[in-house]
Each structure stands twice: as structure tokens, then as C-alpha cells.
């Protein structure tokens, strides 16, 4: 049960970081490129999204674990390593989800806002984003669900909390399987069932939000 907690904690932290990065990157990608700074940021965002989406999550995790985040690695609690790694990973996907959601809104909506004298930002806030949210929510939950399951690759690294080794859901199943090989499959099924339960809960929340958003129209 403690291991489920670590899996969820890593996923939750990654979602928060990913969402912040995703929003920032999406804003950079869609805002008007009127000056060199914005253009440079835009090129950086494109590079980031391309690299992250083009390489496996596990490879990214191991690279970060053994390079940039190596100082976290030696700390007594290193949960931040997978949280940051998955956050950076998820940020790229979320950026694309948000960007494509906003791009899916008819350009006429922005033009109508601007033609009335509203600023780009006001039109974004009052007209475009409220419409884009409806498109973005399902894809966003999809990404969160994938992320929850993908945190299982942390079992490749050694998790430490207060200098004691800890395990995520899959890691725990592996550990118990080594101790009692006869029950290995049963442990794996238990882990699978727990993942499934979390995903079903998320799906329930998703449908609830979607229904609420739909009620807001007509």
C-alpha cells in the first residue's frame, strides 16, 4: 500500500510540473512572434518538444538520474528525481495538447475579439481558452492516465526516502516476487489491479468534468 502511495506521489508531482511546463511552452508556441526573444524561446520550445517526444521515457529517466540530477541522487530522499524527470517528459506532451486545443478554435473567434478592440490576452482569456478547455480536458486526462502507468519505470532506479530504500507499485511486486517466486504472478496481478483502480477513478473524474463543461452550453 505504501508503494501505491509512492507511485501516486510521483505521478502527482509530475503532473503538476508537467502542467506548468506545458502551459509555459504552449504559451510560447502560440503567442505572436514579434521580437527576437520570443522567436528564440519558440525555437527552444520546439527543440524541447521534439527531443522529449522522440525518445523513450525510460531513457530520459536514466539519463537525468545519472547526469543533471546526480546531486539529488545522493541525497537521503531522492523522490524528486523521478518527479522532475516525469514532469519534464509530460510537459512536452501537455504543451502539444494545450497548443493543439487552442489552435482547434476557429481563428474567427480571435478576429472577432480583436475587431471589437479587445486585446490578444483578453480575447484569449475570455473567449479562446474557455472553448479550448473543452477540447483539452479529454486529451489531458489521457496523458495523466498514461503518466500514472508510466511511473512504473521508476523501478529501474533506487528510490530512497530518509536513506531507506522504497518501492513503487511495480518495484514492490518485483521485490516480493524475488522473495517468494511461487507467488510472483499473483503480485504482478495485484499491482495491475491497483493501477486499473486508479485509472478507473481518473476516468470517473474525467467524465464528471466533461459533463459539467457540457452543461455550460445551450
Amino acid at each position: 500500500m505504501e508503494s501505491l502511495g509512492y507511485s501516486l506521489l510521483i505521478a502527482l508531482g509530475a503532473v503538476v510540473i508537467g502542467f506548468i511546463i506545458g502551459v509555459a511552452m504552449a504559451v510560447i508556441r502560440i503567442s505572436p512572434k514579434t521580437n527576437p526573444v520570443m522567436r528564440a524561446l519558440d525555437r527552444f520550445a520546439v527543440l524541447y518538444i521534439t527531443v522529449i517526444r522522440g525518445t523513450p521515457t525510460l531513457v530520459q529517466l536514466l539519463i537525468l538520474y545519472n547526469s543533471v540530477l546526480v546531486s539529488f541522487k545522493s541525497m537521503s530522499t531522492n523522490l524528486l528525481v523521478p518527479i522532475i524527470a516525469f514532469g519534464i517528459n509530460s510537459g512536452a506532451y501537455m504543451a502539444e495538447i494545450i497548443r493543439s486545443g487552442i489552435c482547434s478554435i476557429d481563428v474567427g473567434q480571435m478576429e472577432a475579439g480583436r475587431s471589437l478592440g479587445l486585446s490578444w490576452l483578453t480575447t484569449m482569456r475570455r473567449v479562446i481558452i474557455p472553448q479550448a478547455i473543452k477540447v483539452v480536458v479529454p486529451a489531458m486526462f489521457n496523458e495523466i492516465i498514461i503518466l500514472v502507468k508510466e511511473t512504473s519505470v521508476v523501478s529501474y532506479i533506487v528510490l530512497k526516502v530518509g536513506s531507506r530504500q522504497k518501492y513503487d507499485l511495480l518495484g514492490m511486486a518485483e521485490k516480493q516476487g524475488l522473495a517468494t517466486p511461487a507467488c510472483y504472478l499473483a503480485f504482478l496481478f495485484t499491482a495491475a489491479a491497483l493501477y486499473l483502480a486508479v485509472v478507473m477513478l481518473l476516468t470517473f473524474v474525467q467524465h464528471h468534468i466533461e459533463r459539467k463543461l457540457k452543461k455550460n452550453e445551450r
Partner: protein
Amino acid sequence: MSAEKLLEIRGLYKNFGSLKVLKGVSCDIARGEKVVIIGASGSGKSTMLRCMNLLENPTFGEIWLEGRLLTPVDPYLHNDIIRASRTYRRLSAREGADDEALIKKIRAEDLLHERNEGRDYAALMRRFYGDNYMDTDSARARIGMVFQHFNLFNNLTVMENLTLAPVRLKRKTKEEAEEKGHELLKRIGLDDKADVYPSTLSGGQKQRVAIVRSLAMDPQVILFDEPTSALDPEMVGEVLELMKALADAGMTMCVVTHEMGFAREVADRVLFMADGTILESGTPAEVFDSPKNPRTRQFLEAVL
């Protein structure tokens, strides 16, 4: 700038990459005047309207609203600015003094280079711009626009569509805006629809709401880009009726349309556009009954 000119378009060029869409359009619209623009598809009518409220940035040229400049200064349109340039001084020293020919040459060959034209030139540009400038958002707030596809805000109710801009831009308080909103909706017989979302309206209703949405900002002029082209035939009439009522009430209007009956009845002036220029301009009687340009004649024969 005489006071009666509300909107003035001078030497407007617009390129999309290498595609030259507007090739030097000039036209004045007086306060209260109704101008109808006709022309074949692709001739640049929409682009011209969209340049007027800067939804597109003109490549060259100037747009003036109520005597104030909306675009950057176009140095080629001002002889005194050309004369202040180094290029002019260099050429006049070398080639002699025919002022007019020099200016023409500089203009035709695009010889000015912002950065190298010296202090006098820069100062003049700056003064000219600073003294006369109106920022884009204020200009847009004074220029209404009605689109072919209505572009009502889908996430807002009809009333919110009408009040968002006036309230956000502090033209009115929320109460004033809603009062005006109800008044406008009553005028088009849709007051009972104030709290519904646009998706429940018919095309004709949407377009009429879009028209009163622009009216809610008390614009000086309204631009219409084919306002009835996306409507089912039975709904065209109600929209044209509303536009006629606006015209009768003295609104300044610039309308791109294929409704020749409307043009004949309402227009003070009809412009015929082809290939990014205005080929013919005159009263409806002049343009429709005795077109001077063969291209105009051809177009009218095809559509009438």
C-alpha cells in the same frame, strides 16, 4: 485632413509573401457615407476591409481614421519626408534640381532605407507619427466589423456577446451595457434570446446578433464582409433589412457584397475591384447602368 473624411486609405499595398494582393488602393469614406465594394472572388475585397481595421498589416500605405494615423507613416506618401532624406539630397546634388522627377524616381524605385536617411528624416517621421497616431485597439473599438461567418463568441450567451467588449474596454458599466444590449436586441426582435448560446440561433439570427454586437461599441463606421454569403436564401432578407435600417439611421458603412439590389438601393458609391485595384468608382447608377471599364461590364453581365 478635412473633417468630413472619416476613413481615408492612401496608397495601400498588401503582399502575402510573393503574392501581391492589393496594388495601391486609395479611397475616402465620408461620415454617413455608404460604400459598397463589388468584384470577383480573389480580387482583394476582404483583404482591403481587413487592412482597414488592421486585422492584416498593410505592406505599404496609410490608413487614417478621423484624421489620425493607424498605420506607420509611409514616407513615400509625403514629399516633405522624402525631401528630408539623404537619398534625396544625394540625388539632387548629383542629378540636378527637378524636384518632382526626383521624388517620382525615389518612389518608383523604392530608394529609401529607413536606417540611413539621416536625422532630419527620422525626426520628421517621428513627429509625423507621434502627432497623428491612434493605437490599433482604440481604432478597432471605433471600427465595427461584421464577418461572413458571424464569429459570435460560442462560449458566451447572446447578451454576453454584446456586453463583453464595451464592459472590458470601460466604455460602459455592466448595467449600462446590458440596458443597451436589451435595447439592441429588441430592435432586432431577439430580446427573448438574450440568455441563450449562439449555437441555438439560426444563421440569420446569428448575423443580426453579430451586427448589433458591433453596434454595442457605438462604432464610427461598420465594415461588412459578405454578410449574407453564408446564409440560406430565406434568411438573406432579414439581414439586409437590418443593414438598410442602419443605413437609414445614418451609420457610415463599407459593405463587400454580391447583393446588387442592396448596392443599388443603399450605396452612395459603388467601387469595383479587380486584381487588387479599384477599377471603377461611382454612384450605383453610373457603375451599374453605364460602366466605363470593360472589366466592370464583364463582371456585371456575369452576376446580373
